[in-house]
């Protein structure tokens, strides 16, 4: 009888001993160590090298590069370095004289395909001679040259909507010689607009080449 009467309080005491008040664990964190002048070492591209070639993006038969030689406009009409025509001239090497440099803050470039097209894929090369990531890359297709209506976003890595083009879920990526290949999933429109907002090396925006692959809508 005494054992049974004591059982509950004893169990309660045991439980109270086991379940103590929880507080955040405060750890001492190591302070920064002072360092000398960083060395100008050129780091290799930091993405793991892929084994084999990039997986093929399947596109409809008859898909062609619609943007080669087509006119390009931009939010920065007077690029500091290069010309907008470099973007569709076919040269993707990224050496001096093959890329256009646009000013700081968000900037866009827009390619006029000449007629409405069904876009299968867009390939873009920003400045890729160094390991860098371009921020808030957004790629859109529209029939409206002002991109106010009928806009289809085919790529958006602006995860905090800082460019005010919508919050994107695509991943940012490190530039390399292969360029970024974007599946446009047949989005239709006459114009393709690409935006960015600086990069991890500076506040500027660069394009070596953009290729819009698809077929004109008959």
């Amino acid at each position, binding site marked *: 009888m005494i054992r049974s009467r004591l059982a509950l309080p004893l169990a309660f005491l045991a439980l109270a001993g086991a379940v103590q008040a929880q507080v*955040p664990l405060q750890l001492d964190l190591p*302070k*920064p160590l002072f360092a000398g*002048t960083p060395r100008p070492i050129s780091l290799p591209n930091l993405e793991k090298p892929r084994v084999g070639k990039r997986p093929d993006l399947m596109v409809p038969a008859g898909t062609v590069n619609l943007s080669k030689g087509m006119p390009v406009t931009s939010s920065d009409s007077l690029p500091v370095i290069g010309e907008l025509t470099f973007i569709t001239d076919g040269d993707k090497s990224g050496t001096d004289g093959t890329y256009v440099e646009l000013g700081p803050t968000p900037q866009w470039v827009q390619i006029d395909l000449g007629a409405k097209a069904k876009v299968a894929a867009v390939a873009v090369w920003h400045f890729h001679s160094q390991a860098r*990531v371009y921020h808030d890359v957004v790629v859109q297709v529209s029939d409206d040259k002002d991109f106010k209506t009928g806009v289809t976003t085919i790529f958006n890595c602006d995860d905090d909507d800082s460019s005010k083009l919508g919050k994107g879920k695509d991943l940012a990526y490190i530039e390399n010689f292969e360029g970024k290949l974007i599946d446009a999933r047949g989005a239709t429109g006459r114009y393709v607009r690409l935006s960015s907002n600086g990069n*991890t090396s*500076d506040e500027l925006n660069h394009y070596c080449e953009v290729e819009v692959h698809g077929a004109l809508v008959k």
Partner: protein
Amino acid sequence: MFAPVSRWLPLALVVLAALALRTHDLARRPMHADEANQAVKTGELLEHGRYAFDPRDHHGPTLYYAALPVAWVRGETALATLTETTVRLVPALAGVLGVILLFVLALPLGRWLAVAAAAFMAVAPASVYYSRYFIHETLLVSFTLALLLAARRWWTTGRLGWALAAGSALGLMQATKASAPLFALVAVGALLAAAPPRCAARRPFRDVLLALVAALLIAAVFYSSFGTHFAGLRDAFMTYGFSSARAVDGSGHEKPWWYFFSLFGWLKNGGLVWQQIGFSLLAVAGLVAAFIPANKLLRGAAVYTALIAIALAFTPYKTPWHVVHLVPGVALLAAGGLALIPFRPLAFVVAAVVIALQLTQTRLASFLRSSDARNPYAYVHSAPDVLKIRGLAEAALALAPGGSIRVISEEYWPLPWYLRAFPRVGYWTEAPADCDGALVIASATQADAVRARLRGNYRESYLGLRPGFLCVVFTPAVP
């Protein structure tokens, strides 16, 4: 009434221009890793009154102590409240002082040429850029000019006061950088080339001895942290072992012998052109004027510049801020080049054209592309992305108050400067066992190891520490 105004107005305008160029929008450029190191050390001195000279790195004490009165005047009393503008005002004001000192040094050329020399230095791209940079170089240049001026005055007047002033300048030089003896010796060589044959002092050996005592006392006060750290006196000698080893082996900063000359020539990098052709051509003309006919001041400037150039050219360790030591001599020589132009109005036009060209370069270097990797003065410079760190940390801690910020990277400066106001920040060079935090910043090479040790769900984004050095930012995913 107008005579004093017309006499002083040109210099006043030059000084105002120097001040404006050196102080405008000081906070805009991200902190270089070196600046951040110095600024955090300054913050510790400001907040805790503690400074100990490090013989291995970071140079002498004057930079840190010079920042204290600026911080006090601006109401900043702790590391967390210390700002980029406050610390950068130190080299900015030292740079303006250097312009004034050069004017006085150049007066034997005639007033208008002295103003021209000062104007050339006021707008020189390297002088302006590094006057906006919280490192020791501009202070060392100004102290060296003070030494030259005071020593020349002593030689020509014989007054002990000028000898003591020269000794004080020498002491400040020594308390600024261990390379001071090089610049002091070169200054002596230049003075001997420029000075009258006979010293006016009646007791020159006594004066020199007292000057050296003054120099030693001033250096000792600084290296001992104003009497609070006497081991600093020993370390002031030990530093020569570390710094000479670094100078000789280059330590990753090796460059060809013509590197500093190229900064006065023409460079094209990634579509941007950097040039000082007009300034350099005038200086070459001044070199001719130094010897045909002989002009002692210009000869002294030529000797000084040549000796510094040779010393810098043949030292394997080269960083671009050393170029500021060449600017005063080149500016003096350029003023001397103007003197060869027979018609003064034409000389004014040439000076104005050169100054205008220099100003376009200064604008490009110090304001338009101040942290661009193509800027020859922005050496291994932090990327503008680092300016986002504070906002990222604030947003992360708003979601997880009291949380920790972890920086896991083989290199992480200037991040400690930008995170200085946050209480719980830790720094690792390799991924620790526990990587979770309110915000985790890992170098791209450490990111895989960090990712494998994170227990929570995180969103990832990229941030550039500097061109070519990427960090991955892990932010807890909002459910």
